[in-house]
């Protein structure tokens, strides 16, 4: 095959359109955000941006609302990852075996994953309002004393944002676990049974370890996705009451709305650094877990 230059059949210029779009509309804004995060850039006069050193970062770290949004973001990512993994696994174990209607149930559990987060947010607003479905059901069940304005104070609002997220995406984890479970050879279970292992032992020593790759995928996806959460908070509480349920992405949007572009960029940069650090640590941790097994 020396008659033609192999690479001539694959001209590099064909990659240029993609590279141009990707560079200009994704990479350039990232680089610019990094640079502008050290300036007093603002919406009133966007052509003027003066270098102010670390002032934006300092003021962020002294801003209670920012610190609160960091805390909420971390809490959100950790809690939803835990529950999506747990509930996804339970759902998968429930529907992976054949029984009447099992594929129908898979379809139902997965359905919210294809909906727009904004739409789901509005549906849950109707449920959680003071005069919403949940309270009305509670009154109907004689539990009227438990009724409250679920989105009106920090703790229930934060909980319900996370419950909504889990409601929406548990079916997604379920499907990843189902494909993980189906990949486990039946031989393992048969020989375990021959060795006299009971169902619980088989689950502990065969199923769980062999599902490690599924756990890795779900954890990584949900933690990084969870740190970026925006739509759901925006739709359900708008970061309120007050600034109580603010997360990093809504904080960035709020600073943007106030015209503080430099500060907003600084917050966005801190968010991306947080995501990179967490992803890196997580990969490291999960890989060492998989090797040990």
């Amino acid at each position, binding site marked *: 095959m020396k008659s033609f230059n192999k690479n001539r059949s694959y001209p590099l210029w064909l990659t240029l359109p993609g590279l141009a779009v990707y560079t*200009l509309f994704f990479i350039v804004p990232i680089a610019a955000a990094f640079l502008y995060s050290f300036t007093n850039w603002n919406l009133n006069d966007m052509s003027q941006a003066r270098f102010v050193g670390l002032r934006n970062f300092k003021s962020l770290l002294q801003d209670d609302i920012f610190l609160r949004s960091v805390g909420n973001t971390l809490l959100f990512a950790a809690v939803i990852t835990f529950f999506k993994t747990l509930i996804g696994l339970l759902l998968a174990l429930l529907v992976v075996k054949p029984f009447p209607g099992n594929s129908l*149930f898979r379809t139902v559990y997965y359905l919210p994953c294809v909906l727009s987060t904004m739409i789901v947010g509005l549906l849950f607003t109707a449920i959680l309002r003071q005069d919403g479905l949940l309270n009305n059901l509670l009154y109907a069940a004689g539990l009227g004393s438990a009724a409250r304005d679920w989105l009106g104070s920090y703790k229930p609002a934060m909980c319900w944002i996370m419950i909504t997220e889990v409601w929406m995406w548990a079916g997604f984890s379920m499907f990843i676990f189902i494909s993980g479970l189906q990949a486990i050879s039946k031989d393992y279970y048969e020989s375990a049974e021959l060795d006299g292992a009971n169902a619980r032992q088989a689950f502990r020593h065969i199923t769980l370890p062999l599902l490690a790759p599924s756990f890795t995928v779900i954890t990584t996806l949900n933690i990084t996705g969870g740190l970026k959460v925006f739509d759901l908070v925006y739709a359900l509480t708008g970061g309120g009451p007050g600034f109580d349920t603010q997360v990093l992405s809504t904080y960035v949007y709020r600073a943007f709305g106030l015209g503080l572009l430099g500060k907003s960029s600084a917050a966005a*940069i801190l968010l991306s650094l947080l995501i990179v650090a967490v992803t890196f640590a997580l990969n490291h941790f999960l890989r060492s877990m998989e090797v040990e097994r």
Partner: protein
Amino acid sequence: MEKSYRKYLRTAVASLISLFFFIPILMMLLGSFKTQGEVLALDLSLPEEFRWENYAHVLKTGSILRGYLNSFIITSVSVAMILLFGALTGIIISRRKDKGSRIIYGYYLFGLTATMQMVTTYALMIKLHLNGTYLGVILVFAAINLPFAVLTFSSFVTGVPIEIDEAARIDGAEALQLVFRILLPIMKPVTVTNLIISAIGVWNNFQVPLYLMSSSKKMTIPMTVFNFYGLYARDWQYVFAALTITILPVVILYLALQQYIVEGMTAGAVKG
């Protein structure tokens, strides 16, 4: 005997769980047919009579159809760009195997972990006079979805035997023919995966148009519905009708293409 009893136990448990998924949907469907008075107490009761005129009202005043059209334009064009650029780049860099293509691969890999910067994207749009235009939003969607497309296409092509290319070249295929006539058709599975993931992602995205689209004429469907809710927060019957109109086509599409969608989205997750 004991086995079949267990089977039905599973069905029972699974049905109970599906209630959690059905109740919000049921509330929405029933509510969309009620009068304002009936819907004031959000519950699961049947409407006195099914008021289809709620839907007529929403379609007339809510610019939902306009939102649909906008979402359709933005999604179809950006997905076409993602597939074309992603496939081309994936093919070229996985076949060349030289230093340049390895650098390009790494460059896109960076994009997979990087976070989109909306504030500077907004400023860039203003600078390029693309602010509030379809084209601006389309280009941003294409850019943020390209890393995933490039990496999945590239790893798929790596698994396509090089002999196919060589046979085509012996038959006299030129570079572009080789790419468009021979390789693109082979890549159907990875194309479907990318089509589904990017189409659903773009269609449902709220954040990008929120920053970049201020004109109500060009708003996508999630934004249209959110604004509609802002205007009609006291008329839940209309909000529910708007939500139903928005959700229904997506659900029908999901039920029809379920297999592809679920496989596409999970395959995307595992490879991404």
